[in-house]
Structure formats: structure tokens, C-alpha cells
């Protein structure tokens, strides 16, 4: 058997390390370093798991688990690991541009191309997507009083598909090269004629895996929200985060498909000599642009909407007040979701279509600004007449309000074809979308972690380090991206490995400084987690309600039991837990307990993950026997699963009763803390009614204000 039959196009030269030895250069050394970090990191993890004897627990408690909470946490772990990589890549790009004034800098053009492609692809598909998916996984079932999602195993499979995609992108650091076609992968540049190597194939398959995973997630969550709400939880009583989850899920169902179709068509062009998007022979790349952005624009709202849901939860909790304009916010969210399907063409106003078409899509784009603007004012009005506590999540929220409107303003600018003709493909655009994504989505997820971490792990995160991280991240963002607006207006295109205009220098230096602050802030967040783990006793909030929360997830212990709710709750309004606390219904023993049926662990999902990984790796390197074997195994596992009769286990009522009564007893025995002591060790997760706002506390201006 020849080498090719066994290893396909894989060769010793594919290893990143060979490049550095054969053609030593700064660029190759950077690649060498990155490859080494991946290899050493993987070795370290394996050693750690072996030494600590964690393989068993990892397999039993995590990888085979179908518990939505654990799946959520694993998604977020993937997001954080991938974030570190993509963030370092951003720093490398920034420093290359700083070094490349009128010279070549230290990276080769090809290496720089791979960097912006992996940075963009990872940030979107393997940071932002797993982050929001993990969060929705963790929080949404708890908020609607459910014990799990509708299809727990499918949920685990979605996770493993995402993990396989992330693994593929990590492997590309060590074996072979990645695409240089950008996160949008436009042919014909990414076609076989112009990008013959394995790079684009890595991009195609990692994105395809993530995209299929997200489609399944969307279906799963939408069904869960329709079918699994607890008694009394009408749609219009759901917390806003659930509404945004619903809208995002619907977007995922409809928007991921065009992406999958586009990447598969591109794959057919590359592997099988089709001509969907080639130059000539009937191919037309404009179809790819349409398909990609038919996904791409809804995608930005897939990312943004859950973050907007987080902001709604954070603001009403830390203001201690009902959210202003709930119905308005719901309709605004729905409007955004529906409209987001009708604007994709604004990503290529410059493709030569008629002014009528451009104008219509431009106006459609601006219309999305209306519900978005309404939301911002709704949050401000929620703070109005509240009692604002400036905690770390609130700091992120305030920063969001102020920076998001600026990003919105530049978005309206870009919606104008006349202006877009000038700033399309420029650093102005880069600044715009980072302006939406970083303070909006990324910081939204950071705020969500600060907010829900105590729920997931039973202890709060250290507040001081959280604030330190904020004060590094927020200015870091401003410095890193506001200069790019200016550079873009002065004709600086995106994706340039070098440049020649001396006037750009100070702005790029500021952007570098901003990137450094963003890195520092991220390190602070990691330190925060470390410090909090060490101080977990002082920070413990086992009673589950550290922030005087308003929705159902705060009514159960922290961390919650596998079955979430000992007895399925019954609600009769919005802010169910706040109402229960007010009426003295909280922490009451239920009338009776009954057995609970929960899904068993299953090795189906990790097996599918492993073999879709080998499938896609084999496709990248044309190792056909492995393609066939992996494909058969994946579907074999699916078929085998249908013969498993015992998929659920029964948890006896006695055990649930014992655990839950112990929790209730502890809760009743513990005096609650007021919000003044929220950040003190006295906060064990039980909230006392806040003395502010009690009757008899009226001040003179109250009279005046009630007249408004």
C-alpha cells in the first residue's frame, strides 16, 4: 500500500515544525510557537488527567452527560479556550501592523492571511456561538421551570459537533495551514484554482460542523420553549432572556442552513470539480455571497439577541425593579429577528446591482435600528425609579449602553449605500462590528458569567477582580477600535499585512495599546476565577439567591441538583420568584414529592464527536479510507442507539425529598441579607427584603415624582 492510500495528502512537510526548520524566518517561528503551545497544552492536559486520575470522572460526569447544565458549562469552557487563542491572534495581528510600517514586519503575508481568517472564524463560530449556546443551555430551562431541554441527547450531540469543529481548527495549527480567505471565505479566491492547499478545507469542515451543531441546537431550544414551560408560565410571563433565546433559536433554524449549503457547495467545487462558484464554466461567486450573508446577517443577531436578554436580566435584578416595557421589549426582539432576514444585501452594496435594490436593502437595514433603539431606552427607563447597585455586571451594562449607541450610529452610516461605497472593506467596518460585538456580545457574556456563576458553582466571583477586569476591558475596547474608525475613514483597508502611510502610525499604536489592555483584562478575569475558587468558602452562596433574583432559577439551590426542581413550579405572573418572596411563598415545602424520570448518560454524543472529527480531518487530507470508516461509525452509532431500550432512570421521591427538605430547612434557618451586604461573606444566597422602598420610607421628591 502506498503512503497516499494510508495518509492521503498528509506528509512530514505538513507539520508546522518542519517549516521552521526548513525555511527559518520570524513568521515560521511564530507558527512553530503556536503549534508547540497546542501540542504542549494537549500533553499537559493528558498528564494532568492521568496524574489526578480524572479520566473516569471526566468521562462519566461530563463527556457522556446529557444534563443541560453540564453541557452549558462545557460549551462555555470551549468558548473560553478558543477565546484565548483568537485573542492572542488579534494581538499578533496588531503587533504585526505596528511593525509593518513601510516594511514587511515579521509575518509573511500568507501567515497574516491565516491569522485574520482563524481569528474571525474562531471568534464567531467557536467563541461567540458556544458562549451564547452554553449560556442559553444553562439558564433557559431553569428559567422556565423545566428539568431539561426537550432532546437532551441531541443537545449533547450539538455540543460534540461544535467541539469537533473546534478541535479541527486547533489541529490546523500543528498540521498543515489554514485558509487565507477570511471568515467569509469568498470564492473564487477560496476555490481550488486559487487556493489549492488544505487550508480552505479546514475552514469548510470546521464551519460546517459548527453550523450543523447550531441548527440542531436551534431546533432543540425552540421546541423546549414551546413545550416545556412549567404550569402557569405563559409565553408573556417568560423572563426576557427566554424570549431572546426563542428568537435566536428560530434564527438558528433558518439561518444556519444557507451556510451549510454554501460550504457544502464550495466543497463540491473543490473536491468534485463542480462549478457553483468558479470563474467561468457557469459558476457564479455572487451566489455564494448571497448564501453566506443570508446566514451572516441573521448570525449577528443570533449572537446579539441572547446578550440583549442578559442585559435585561442584569439590569432589572441590580436595579431591584420590574423591567420597563416588557411587552415592548418582546415585540422589539421579534421585530429584530424577523427583519434580520431581509437585509443581507447590505454586505455587498458594491457588487453592481441597481440603485433601487441597494436603497431598499439600505432602508430595511435602518429600520432594524428602530426596535434596537427602543430597547436601549427601555433599559434606561428600567433604571429610572430603581435602586441601582453598581456591581460588575452593571458596569458592563452601562458601558454597553454608551458604546452600543455609537456602534448603532456607525451601523446606520454603513446602511447607507453612498457611505458604504467608501467604508466597505475598510477598518471602519472592522471598528463597527467589533463595536457591536465586543461591548454588546462578548462583554454581555462576561456579565452573564459574573451573574450566573454563583448559580452554577455555588459561590460568587470575587468582585474586586471583576471590577479590575472591567476597568481594563472597557477602555481597552475603546482604544483598540475607535482609532480604526478614523483610519477607515482615511482610506485604510482591512486585512492588510503592511501599510505605508506615516499618519496611520499613532493610531495603530493606540490600537495596539487597546489590544494589550484587552489581554490584561482577560487575564484579570482568569485570575478572578482562580482567586474565587481559593476563597470559595467566604464566597459561598449555597442557598441559591445571591442577588435577590427575580426569576425561577434563583429559587433553587446553588449548584442546582441534576433534576433542577424537586417539584415542578407553578407560576402566576412575571418575576415569579420576586412575587413568591413578597408573598411569603418562597422556601415553602411542597405538598408531596414524586419520583423523577431523568435521561441516562450516553456515550453516543462523544462517539459522534470523535468520529465526525476524524471524518472531517480525513476529508481535509483526502484520507479516503478514514472518511468511509468514520462515516460508517457515526451512522452506526446512531442506529445502535435506537436499540437502547433503557434511556431514562428513575430518581426516587425519598431521595429528592431528603435533599430538598435539607435545602429548605437551611434556607428557612438562615437570616437573609439586605442588598447592602450583597458582596460580604454574610451573603449565603438568601435575600432579605430590602429596607429601601418599604412603605414609610417616602422622601419629599417622591411626591413630586409620582406626579410625572
Amino acid at each position, binding site marked *: 500500500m502506498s503512503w497516499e492510500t494510508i495518509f492521503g495528502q498528509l506528509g512530514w512537510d505538513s507539520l508546522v515544525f518542519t517549516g521552521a526548520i526548513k525555511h527559518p524566518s520570524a513568521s515560521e517561528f511564530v507558527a512553530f510557537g503556536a503549534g508547540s503551545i497546542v501540542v504542549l497544552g494537549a500533553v499537559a492536559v493528558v498528564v494532568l488527567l492521568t496524574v489526578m486520575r480524572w479520566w473516569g470522572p471526566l468521562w462519566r460526569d461530563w463527556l457522556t452527560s446529557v444534563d443541560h447544565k453540564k453541557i452549558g458549562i462545557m460549551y462555555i469552557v470551549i468558548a473560553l479556550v478558543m477565546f484565548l487563542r483568537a485573542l492572542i491572534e488579534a494581538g499578533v495581528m496588531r503587533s504585526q501592523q505596528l511593525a509593518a510600517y513601510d516594511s514587511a514586519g515579521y509575518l509573511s503575508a500568507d501567515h497574516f492571511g491565516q491569522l485574520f481568517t482563524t481569528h474571525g472564524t474562531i471568534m464567531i463560530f467557536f467563541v461567540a456561538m458556544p458562549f451564547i449556546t452554553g449560556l442559553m443551555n444553562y439558564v433557559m430551562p431553569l428559567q422556565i421551570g423545566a428539568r431539561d431541554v426537550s432532546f437532551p441527547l441531541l443537545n449533547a450531540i450539538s455540543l460534540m459537533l461544535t467541539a469537533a469543529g473546534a478541535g479541527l481548527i486547533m489541529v490546523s495549527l500543528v498540521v498543515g495551514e489554514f485558509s487565507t480567505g477570511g471568515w467569509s471565505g469568498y470564492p473564487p479566491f477560496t476555490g481550488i484554482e486559487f487556493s489549492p492547499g488544505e487550508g480552505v478545507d479546514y475552514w469548510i469542515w470546521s464551519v460546517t460542523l459548527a453550523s450543523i451543531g447550531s441548527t440542531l441546537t436551534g431546533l432543540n431550544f425552540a421546541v423546549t420553549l414551546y413545550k416545556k414551560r412549567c404550569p402557569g408560565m405563559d409565553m408573556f410571563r417568560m423572563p426576557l432572556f427566554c424570549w431572546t433565546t426563542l428568537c435566536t433559536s428560530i434564527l438558528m433554524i433558518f439561518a444556519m442552513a444557507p451556510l451549510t449549503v454554501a460550504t457544502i457547495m464550495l466543497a463540491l467545487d473543490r473536491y468534485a470539480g463542480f462549478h457553483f462558484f468558479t470563474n467561468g464554466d457557469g459558476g457564479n461567486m455572487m451566489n455564494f455571497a448571497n448564501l453566506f450573508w443570508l446566514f451572516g446577517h441573521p448570525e449577528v443577531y443570533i449572537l446579539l439577541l441572547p446578550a440583549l436578554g442578559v442585559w435585561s436580566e442584569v439590569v432589572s435584578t441590580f436595579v431591584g425593579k420590574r423591567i420597563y416595557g416588557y411587552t415592548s421589549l418582546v415585540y422589539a426582539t421579534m421585530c429584530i429577528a424577523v427583519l434580520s432576514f431581509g437585509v443581507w444585501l447590505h454586505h455587498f452594496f458594491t457588487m453592481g446591482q441597481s440603485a433601487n435594490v441597494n436603497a431598499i436593502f*439600505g432602508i430595511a437595514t435602518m429600520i432594524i435600528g428602530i426596535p434596537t433603539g427602543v430597547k436601549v431606552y427601555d433599559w434606561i427607563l428600567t433604571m429610572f425609579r430603581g435602586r441601582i447597585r453598581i456591581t460588575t455586571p452593571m458596569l458592563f451594562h452601562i458601558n454597553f449602553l454608551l458604546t452600543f449607541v455609537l456602534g448603532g450610529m456607525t451601523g446606520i452610516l454603513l446602511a*447607507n449605500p453612498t457611505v458604504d461605497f467608501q467604508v466597505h472593506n475598510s477598518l471602519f467596518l472592522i471598528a463597527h462590528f467589533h463595536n457591536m460585538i465586543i461591548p454588546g456580545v462578548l462583554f454581555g457574556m462576561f456579565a452573564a458569567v459574573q451573574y450566573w456563576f454563583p448559580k452554577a458553582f455555588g459561590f460568587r466571583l470575587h468582585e474586586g477582580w471583576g471590577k479590575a477586569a472591567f476597568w481594563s476591558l472597557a477602555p481597552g475596547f475603546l482604544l483598540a477600535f475607535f482609532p480604526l474608525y478614523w483610519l477607515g475613514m482615511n482610506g485604510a483597508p482591512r486585512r492588510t499585512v503592511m501599510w505605508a502611510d506615516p499618519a496611520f502610525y499613532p493610531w495603530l499604536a493606540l490600537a495596539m495599546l487597546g489590544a494589550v489592555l484587552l489581554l490584561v483584562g482577560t487575564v484579570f478575569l482568569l485570575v478572578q476565577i482562580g482567586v474565587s475558587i481559593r476563597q470559595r468558602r467566604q464566597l459561598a452562596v449555597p442557598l441559591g439567591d445571591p442577588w435577590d433574583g427575580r426569576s425561577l432559577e434563583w429559587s433553587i439551590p446553588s449548584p442546582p441538583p441534576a433534576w433542577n426542581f424537586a417539584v415542578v413550579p407553578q407560576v402566576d405572573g412575571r418575576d415569579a420568584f420576586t412575587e413568591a418572596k413578597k408573598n411569603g411563598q418562597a422556601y415553602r415545602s411542597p405538598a408531596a414529592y414524586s419520583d423523577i424520570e431523568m435521561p441516562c448518560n450516553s456515550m453516543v454524543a462523544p462517539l459522534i464527536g470523535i468520529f465526525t472529527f476524524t471524518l472531517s480531518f480525513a476529508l481535509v487530507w483526502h484520507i479516503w479510507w478514514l472518511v468511509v470508516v468514520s462515516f460508517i461509525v457515526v451512522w452506526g452509532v446512531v442506529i445502535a442507539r435506537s436499540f437502547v431500550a433503557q434511556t431514562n432512570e428513575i430518581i426516587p421521591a425519598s431521595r429528592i425529598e431528603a435533599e430538598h427538605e435539607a435545602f429548605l430547612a437551611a434556607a428557612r434557618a438562615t437570616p437573609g441579607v439586605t442588598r447592602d451586604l450583597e458582596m460580604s461573606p454574610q451573603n449565603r444566597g438568601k435575600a432579605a427584603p430590602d429596607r429601601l422602598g418599604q412603605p414609610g420610607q417616602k422622601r419629599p421628591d417622591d411626591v413630586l415624582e409620582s406626579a410625572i
Partner: protein
Amino acid sequence: MKGIITWALVVSALSLPTLAQAALPAETQVYSAGFIDAAGPVAAAQFEHFQTIISLMLIVVVPIFILVPWVLWRYRRGGRGAYRPDWDFNWGNEAVLWGVPIVLIIILSSALWAHTHKYDPYRPLGNDPLDIEVVSLDWKFLFIYPQQGIATLDYLALEQDRPIRLKLTSGTVMQSFMIPQLAGQIYTMAGMTTQLNLLADQEGEYLGRNTQYNGDGFATQSFRTAVMPKSQFDNWVIHTQKNTQTLDLATYEALLKPSIEHVPRYYGTVDAGLFNRVLARFTAGHAHADSTPAEVSQIREHHHPQNNPKGAEQ
């Protein structure tokens, strides 16, 4: 991680001295500049529109920068504002919240509509335009002056105050052609044509470039655009026509090879119909490099009616 940070800090610190050095003027270089420094009516209008939108948007942006600090101060824990934990709706507010943005977007939309049509890149900017055919290559631009029978590589000479009509295509991957100080960008795609009309009313040299990533030579794929008065332009044409180099199919084939060019090239003669032959290379099965231009445009219209929305003028 720590290493990277330290190293990044060192890099930022080192950048300061270089800054002074970088500020020295370099005489011969044309630097990129944006529509802020417009040198023609189209770019100027684009920048004006940019400013109009910003001023209109301030109607919703400014209140936020006032309201947020005020609310934060007044309703902070321990602040003086009244606490109304159950207050969550008011029809008056609602009307303003939805009403103001709706009115604003209606105004912005009408401005958008008017501007998009008025500055449509396909819209002619006057009579007697100077026609130039643009072929984007890896990593350079070819300019053909059909009326003058000359061509250039990476150098675009324009006559001041005369409408310019560019017809663009690509000999390779998709690119985006732009001279920011004169007009916006437009994509170039193989087998299809796009158009860009522009006008330069200030004499001078401006940077033009490709803005769509197309590989290793992308960063430096730019060209000098020289805007000169009529007499000077005519002289330049005559001078270029004297050039002995010919742009024919063989020369074009050689140019198709990806390369980074540092010096412009000038061709005194051009094969007639070369632009259409470039287009024809991508028309499936039918026409090949040797078809006549008439055949070619027929075939193209048949196969890609959508590619040439303003095809009527052909």
C-alpha cells in the same frame, strides 16, 4: 501569556521614537487618504452625506449620554430619586420611544433613497465621458483607454473636470476597485462587468487600490491616479502612444501570472476588443479568446442577464 504581554508592552514603548521618524515627509509617495479629503464631487457628496447622518443620529444618541449619567446618579442606591419597584409601563413614554426613532428613520430613509440614486455609481456624470476599461489582476490593475488606443498598468491618468466612465472586470478572483478621494468602490468579477462613474475636479495625485483581499500581494495592490488638466492629459496620451510596447493577448497572458509590481507600465498600442476577450474567457463552452466582441457580449447577456443591470448602454 505573561510573556506576550510584556513583549507587547515593549513593542508599544518602542513605537514612540519611530513615530517621529515616521512623520518625516516622503516626497514621491502618494498616501492613502479618504473621502474626508475629497478631490471630486462624488466623494465630497459621500462625505457630506456621512455628516448629515451623524447629525441626525445625534438626536437619539445625545439624550442617552445625558440620561444615563443622570439616571445613574439620581437612582443610585442611596440616591434621592424615588424607588418604584413595580413601575413598568407608561403609554406616553411608549409613544415617544417608538415615535421618535420611527420619524427619524423615515427622514433618514428619504435621504438614503435620494442619495443612493443620485450617487449611483452607474449614473453618468455628464456628456462626453472619458471611457476607461479596468481589468483587475493579481496584484495589479490594467487600464485600457479604448478611445486613445493606449493602456497602462498600475497608473491611471485622468482628465480634470471631465466625467470618467469606468467599465470593470477581473481577470482573476473578485476584487474591489476604489479611489477614495474620487468615488466609492465597486467589485470587479471575472466574466462580468461593473461600472463606476467619477469626476475629479482637483488636479493632483491620489491613491487607488483594491480593497478585497486576494492573496499575498493584496496589501500593496495600489496605483497612482494622476488628475491633470486637458492639455496636459492630451500630451500624456500622445506621449504614451509613442510607446513601443503593445498590449495584446500574449502580453495579457503574461500579466495573468500573479506578481507584485513596483513600477507602472505603459502600452502605446492595444489590441482592439481586448477587454471583451478578457470577459469571454469565462463564458462557458461558447466563446473563447478568439471570438469577436459582438459574439461575446451577446453570449454574456444571454448567460448572465443579472450581471449587467445597466446592460442597455452596451
